[in-house]
């Protein structure tokens, strides 16, 4: 199988600080890949580079053998990437439904004139969009909140809404930054099911998470970063027993 997303020699420096150093990585179609590592290891930075927030100091990112770094943020999204944010960033003055529908705007075929004159084409498109948005909300279990303001949602639901919004962009690759943070064990378990379902419906998923139970159960492969260096890559089983990883990240006293 061909690798879908290939990251080679990625380096990111902030002044004197090297947040990422020569990181190589491959993600294949339909996989769930986890990125783990201690705090400040550079995981979020990796996401930021992939989605075009930062321009890397060195290295390339290829999607289907096409270089994507250097593109603008919105161009990358239109290639099929979508992400969630570690610090939740929902649109606070828009309803939950609008937050999701907003994700579809980048795929809209309606021109500005269609929008101004409310042409049948635009109305048709909007109807489809709304239907799809409601479906996505339903999958994420947020349908009851659809007209609420996202700020009034509990933290965990806000995280789900972020995923819903990302899905709405019609992405094929989802980048989830700590999707389970702030969720209790029950909710994490639900999320696990949701994420697996997403994979089954064809999404490729890259996720960052500190909840090891979640990561080990859902990911096909893991990359471990430490101080910006890739220290280990492999299946959850391999990673779990890697002494470097245990030393730097997991800790020895795994009780459960």
């Amino acid at each position, binding site marked *: 199988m061909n690798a879908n997303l290939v990251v080679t020699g990625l380096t990111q420096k902030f002044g004197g600080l090297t947040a990422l150093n020569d990181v190589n990585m491959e993600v294949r179609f339909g996989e769930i890949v986890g990125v783990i590592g201690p705090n400040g290891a550079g995981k979020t930075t990796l996401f930021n580079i992939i*989605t075009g*927030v930062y321009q890397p100091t060195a290295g390339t990112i290829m999607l289907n053998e096409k270089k994507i770094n250097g593109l*603008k*943020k*919105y161009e990358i*999204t*239109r290639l099929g990437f*979508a*992400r969630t*944010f570690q610090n939740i*960033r*929902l*649109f*606070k*003055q*828009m*309803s939950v439904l*609008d937050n999701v*529908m*907003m*994700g*579809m*705007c*980048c*795929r*809209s075929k*309606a021109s*500005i004139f*269609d*929008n*101004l*004159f*409310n042409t049948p084409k*635009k109305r048709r*498109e*909007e109807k489809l*969009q709304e239907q799809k948005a409601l479906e996505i909300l339903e999958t994420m279990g947020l349908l009851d909140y*659809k*007209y609420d303001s996202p700020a009034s949602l509990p933290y965990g639901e806000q995280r789900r809404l972020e995923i819903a*919004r*990302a899905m709405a*962009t019609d992405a094929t690759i989802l980048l989830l930054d700590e999707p389970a943070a702030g969720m209790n064990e029950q909710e994490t378990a639900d999320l696990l099911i949701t994420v697996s379902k997403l994979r089954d419906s064809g999404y490729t998923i890259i996720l960052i998470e500190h909840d090891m139970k979640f990561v080990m159960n859902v990911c096909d492969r893991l990359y471990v970063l430490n101080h910006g260096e890739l220290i280990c890559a492999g299946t959850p089983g391999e990673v779990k027993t890697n002494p470097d990883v245990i030393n730097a990240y997991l800790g020895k006293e795994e009780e459960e």
Partner: protein
Amino acid sequence: MKSINFLKKAWTGVIEFIAMHQIPIMIILIIIVTAFPFLTTNKYFLRISTLCLINIVLGLALNLVQGYMGQMSFATVAFFGIGAYAGALSVMRLGLPSLAAMVFGMVTAAGFGFLIALPTLKLKGYYLSIVTMGFCEIIRIVEMNWQELTRGSLGIMNIPSVTIFGNKLKSGRANYIIALIILVIVTILIKNLVNSNFGLSLKSIRDDDSAAETMGINIVHIKRVNFIISAAICGFVGAFYAQYVTFIHPSSFTSAVSQEYIVMIIFGGLGSIPGTFLGCIILTVLPELMRGLLQYRLLIYGALMVIMMNFMPGGLLGNLDLKLIRKKILDRRKKTERKGGGGE
């Protein structure tokens, strides 16, 4: 306490009623405002109501930038002025017919909008505000100084009135109707726009622009298009305004006047079309009602502004989204129906 609660309930009731019957209410309103000039012969009433209509159009255009895109802009009046001058000059020097002059005003203003949007919309927040303020001042100073074209501070006088099919429409009544037609069209266009994908993109830029861009929105493009649409609307009414008042002067197009529009739409409620209507009408009519107070007028006006903001910080109808309310109510009804149906 109880009475406040009661008021609140009554208020939500009214809003819900309006939300549910938008179309009939609109029709009734349009009939009333269309009939208005035929019920009065008072020129002053006509003048003020025509001004209200023009102000609402400008308020709506500004709201597009400030309410939906979240950028305080002082450029509204600059574009209005550009439209007015372009319209007046094109009628007087090029001999364009009225409607063509309005289109010319619109295109000119949109052109300027494009020019300043090109580099400046990368700026955010107050940085954009000050640039638009500077732009407004520069335009006014050009209007003042380019005497060969604009007659500077002498103003342009004797601008021919609006002509339709060769008939000069000098009466207040005819101008009122034209202004009303412009307003209705602009309102429909803006309503369409903000309720579309474009509107969603705008609102998301307002709430969090980097997140919006990460969700695939070309924010520079959207902002620019929006800015230009707003400028075009201002230019169009500007050209109409020139032909309506027949005398234009740079002092009508200062950033201080822009500030008045900013106040109007914040007063009415940012990001709300009915709010803009209300804010613009109240703040156009109120100073007129207070004429009798002479020099105390502005003093009281200032005090009212503070009091109003203290008690209704979001403006009269801030972020009131009738479409959303309607959807909510329909949704609620559906649910209760379903429950009721299950019971049987």
